[in-house]
C-alpha cells in the first residue's frame, strides 16, 4: 500500500482534522527523500475530490464518497471521496456483481484511483446503490460550467494589508521563488510570516490587498503581468492533455474539474502538470476562467524543457 493510500484511509477514518495533524501523519507515512510535501499532498487529495480544505482555519475534512462516470472512458466510473480500509476491503472481496469490477490503480504521489469497469449502462448506478453512495455523471463538465473567474474569486477576499513585522517575501513569477523583501508597497504577491504559517496577500495595481491562497494569487499576478499563455492543451485520440505550470498551481475547483476527467492525479513532466483525458471544452473553461488563452500544442510534453 502506498503512503498516500494509507493517508486517505486514515483521513477517512478520522473524518477531519487540523493542518498540524495532517503534517504529522504525512511525515510519518511518507518515505524520506520525497520532494512532495504535506501541503502539495493535501492539494492533490483536494483536486481528486477526497478532501476539502479550509485554509483559514487550517483544517481539512474528508469529502463524502461519490461514484461518477468518467467521460469517454469506456464506461469506467470513478469512486472518489472518503475511502476507509473497510470500504476498500468490501470492494476488493465482497463485490459480487456480474457487470462491475473495481480496479485500484496505484499512482505516484496520490492515493490509488478506484476505477470501476462496467458491463452495462446501469451497473454504476447499481454499484452506487449497493455502496449507498450518490452517483453523478459528467462531473468534469459540471465543475467546468461552475468555474469562477479570477474576479469572482476575489469578490470576498478584499483584505487589510499584511503585517510584515516578522518578515515578508515577494513572489518572483520568473523563478517561482520567494526572496525576502524590505517593503511591500508595490503591486504583487506577498507572503507574510505569521509563525505557525505564512499568509498571502495579492496587491493589485490600485494597491488594494486581497487575502489569497497560492493558486489564486499566482494567477492574479500572471494576469497583472500580462502573461496569458501559460495553459496548454494537446489533443489526443479522444480528448487531450491539459498542461498547467507546476509553479502556478490551479485553484482547487479548476484542478478538480480537470482531474475528474480521468480520476487520476496529474503527472509531472518537466515544468508542467499534465491532466489526462480533458475534453477541449473543459480545458478552455479552465483557461478562460484564469484569464488565459488556451494554447493548443502538438506536443505539450516538450514544454517541460522550454
Amino acid at each position, binding site marked *: 500500500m502506498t503512503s498516500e493510500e*494509507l493517508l486517505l484511509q486514515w483521513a477517512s*477514518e*478520522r473524518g477531519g482534522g487540523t493542518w498540524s495533524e495532517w503534517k504529522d501523519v504525512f511525515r510519518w507515512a511518507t518515505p524520506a527523500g520525497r520532494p512532495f510535501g504535506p501541503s502539495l499532498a493535501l492539494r492533490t487529495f483536494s483536486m481528486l475530490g477526497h478532501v476539502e480544505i479550509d485554509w483559514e482555519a487550517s483544517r481539512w475534512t474528508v469529502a463524502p464518497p461519490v461514484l461518477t462516470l468518467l467521460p469517454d472512458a469506456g464506461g469506467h466510473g470513478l469512486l472518489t471521496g472518503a475511502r476507509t480500509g473497510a470500504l476498500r476491503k468490501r470492494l476488493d472481496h465482497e463485490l459480487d456483481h456480474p457487470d462491475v469490477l473495481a480496479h485500484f*490503480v496505484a499512482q505516484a504521489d496520490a492515493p490509488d484511483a478506484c476505477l470501476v469497469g462496467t458491463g452495462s449502462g446501469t451497473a454504476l448506478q447499481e454499484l452506487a446503490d449497493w455502496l449507498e453512495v450518490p452517483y453523478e455523471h459528467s*462531473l468534469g463538465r459540471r465543475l467546468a460550467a461552475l468555474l469562477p473567474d479570477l474576479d469572482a474569486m476575489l469578490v470576498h477576499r478584499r483584505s487589510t494589508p499584511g503585517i510584515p513585522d516578522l*518578515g515578508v517575501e515577494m513572489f518572483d513569477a520568473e523563478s517561482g521563488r520567494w526572496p525576502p523583501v524590505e517593503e511591500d508597497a508595490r503591486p504583487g504577491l506577498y507572503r507574510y510570516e505569521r509563525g505557525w504559517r505564512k499568509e498571502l496577500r495579492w496587491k493589485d495595481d490600485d494597491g488594494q490587498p486581497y487575502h489569497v491562497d497560492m493558486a489564486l494569487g499566482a494567477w492574479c499576478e500572471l494576469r497583472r503581468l500580462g502573461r496569458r499563455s501559460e495553459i496548454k492543451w494537446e489533443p489526443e*485520440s479522444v480528448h487531450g492533455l491539459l498542461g498547467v505550470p507546476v509553479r502556478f498551481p490551479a485553484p482547487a475547483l479548476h484542478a478538480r474539474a480537470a482531474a475528474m476527467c480521468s480520476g*487520476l492525479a496529474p503527472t509531472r513532466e518537466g515544468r508542467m502538470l499534465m491532466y489526462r483525458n480533458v475534453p477541449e471544452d473543459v480545458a478552455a473553461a479552465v483557461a478562460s476562467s484564469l484569464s488565459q488563452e488556451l494554447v493548443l500544442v502538438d506536443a505539450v510534453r516538450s514544454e517541460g524543457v522550454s
Partner: protein
Amino acid sequence: MLRYAPVGAQALLMMRTWSYRDWSTALRNHYFSARSAGEPVLFLVDEDHLLEIHPSRSASEAAASLAEVVRGRMDFGHPNGEFHRVERDARRWRHGDSAAPDPLPLLALCVLAASWMGSGTVSTANYREHFCGLLDLPKTTLPPGYGLSVPQLWQYLHEWLEDLHGGSYGRSTIVKSAAQPWIGYALSQTLFLSADVARLADFFESIELAPGEDVDGPELLAYFRAWAPSHGLSKGARYMMDSDDHAPGLERILSGHARRWDGTRVPGSGERRSVIRVVVDPYPRLQVALAAPRGEGLPESPEVLAPDGRRVRMSSTSSHWYDSVPLPVEAGTLRHGASLQGAGFSLILRGGEVHVLRLDPQLGGWGSVPSVLVGERHWVLLADEVWERVRGWLFEHGGSECQEDERLARVLPRWHLVRDVVIERPPATPPPAGMACLSPSIQHRVALKGGLPLQRGGGAYLVGGPPDLWRPMIDEETIPARLVSNGQERDLPGEGLHLRLADLDPPLGHGEHVIQALGALRRSLTLVPSTRLKPPTVDRPEHRLAITTTGQVESHQPPGVGLATPEEVRVSGARVLGGAVAGVPPQPVLINRRARYAVVLGSRPGEREGVPSRPPAPSWMADLGLSDRFADFSPSFEPVWVIETWADAPRRRARAVSGQKPEAAVDDLDAVAAWAEELSEIDRVRARDEELWQQYVAVAEEIGT
C-alpha cells in the same frame, strides 16, 4: 580537613557556649526555614555549612560544639539505648510539641560523620570511625541503641517536614536505604552536593523542561541518568545515580526542583540565571540583536559586570525583557559567548558555531533555541568556519524551502543565515560533528510521535499505523527500550533516535502495546482495525458559488465559515449541490463497441439519434490496462432507450437507461415516425425493462395507426 575563618571579638564570646537548643535553632534556620518552602532540602551538614552556621567560623570548633551538645543528651548505659532520651523527645516534637527538643543536632552529627567518609569506602566501618570519633567513643562499635533510634529519628524528621508542615519548611529528601539501613539516611544527605544541585539548571535546559511542566520523578531520573555521566557531577552524585537504593531520594530531589523550575532559578540557591537569546529581526531590514529575558525575581534595572570589566546599568520598561543587552553583536560574541554578572544573578549568552532560531512572536523575530524540533521551521546561523562543512548537509535535509539569506553579510560578516529549515524526520546521515543541535528530537524525551491516530492526542491508532518511537541520544548511544504486547516482551532495535514501530517484524497486531524504556518510562498505544465504511459525520466545509440568472458565476467562497444560501451552488468533493447548473449535457449513454450500430431514443416520440462511429479508446486507458468495451454517447435529449444492432442473434437489443415514461411527441412527423419504427422488430428486451418497454410499444403502435 578542617577550615577556619576570621573571628570577631563578639563572636568569640559565643564560642563553645552553644546549647542543644542553640544548635537546634541554628540548624533549623539554616536548612528548614520558610525560604525552602516547596524545595527539596538536603540536610547536608559538612564543614562548609558548619562555617556558615557556627559563630566561631571554625569548622573544628563547630564540630566540637555540636558533638558536645549531642553527647550531653545521650543516656549512657540506658537499657533502651544511649539515644533513648533524644528519641523520646523527638517523638513529641514530631507530633507538634514545639517545646520538645528536636533531633536535629544528633542527625547533623550523623551527616557530618558521613561527609567525612570522603573518598574512602562507603561502609559502616568507615562511618563508625568518624561518628564515634566525634563523640569521643570507642570505635569498635556504634553506640548501643543506634540502630533502633537513629533510623526512627530520620523518619521523624521526614514526617515533620512532609506530614506536619506539608513542605512549608522544605520537601524531605530522606529515604530509607535497604542496603545500608543504619547509615544510608545520613549518607543520602551528603551525596548530592550543592554544586550538583546547581547543575540541575543545565539538566532542565537540556531536556527543555518548560516551567510548570509535570514530569514524574522516575522519568526525570531516567533522563538524568542518561544526561549526567558527561556533565561533571560529584563522585557522591554519581554514586547516588548508579545505586537503585538511592533512586527514590534522587527522584525526590529532581522532581522537587523541577516543580520549582521557572527557567531562570538555579536550583538550591537564590541565584538566577537567564539565557540571552540571539534574535534575527527580518523586517524591514535584516538585523541581529541580543535579547535578555527578565525572569521572575530579576531586578528591573540592575547593574551588571560586562566581560570587558565595565559596570553597566540595564533597564527594562517591560516586565519580560530587558531593553537592551550591553554586549557587542559581532561575530566573536556569537562564536565565543559571554556573560553579564549581577548581584545574585547572571545573564549568559551561549556561544557556538551554530545558532538555531525559531520564530518567537513575543520577541518579534527569530530567537535562538537549544535545538531543532521535528517538523518546525527554523532559521540557522552558521559561522564561516563551519559553513562549507555544514551547508551541504543542511540543504539536503532542511527541506525544499530552505534558502540562504545573503542580506546577513552586511550586518554580521563571517556568518551565514539559512531560512526556513524544516527537518521532517531523522536524517539518514547525522549532522556534521559539533552540530548535534541540528539533529531533530522531541524535546530530548522518549516520545511516541506520528502514526495514524484515530483521535487527537493519540492513544488509539489504526492497525498498520503505530507511531514512531523517539529516543534521545545520550553520549552517542540510544536508550534501550522494549515492547510488551499481549504479555509477550521483545527488545526493540537500538540504533538511532527514531524507531519505526510499523516496520517491526512480526508487525504489531490490534490491541494494546506498551513501550518501556530506561526502566521507568512507559508509553502505551492501542491499535484498532478499520470497521467503518463511511467517514464520521462532521461539519463539512464547502465551496460556495453565487450564480446569476444568466448562469454566470458571480462570486466564489472557498470552504470555510458560514452557511450557504439556498440560491448558492455548493461543491463538496465531487458533489455539486443546490442551485441550477447550466450547460451540463444529459447523462451520456454507454454504447457497446462491438455493436454494429446503435440508436438512442428519448421519452418524447421524435427524440431519436443514431450513434456515429465510435472513436478509438483513449490511450491513457490502454496505459492503465483498462478495457474499452463501451463508448460514451451524449444525445441532445435525455435518453431513455439504447437500441443496439449486433451481428449475431439476437440482433436488435433494447435496454432502458432511464425509467422515464413516454411523453408528448415532438412537432416533427417524420421524426416521430422514425422514432416509432425503432420500437418495432426488437429481438431482445431486458426482463426488468419489459414493463416500461410495453408502454413505449403501445405509444409506437398508436403512432403507427
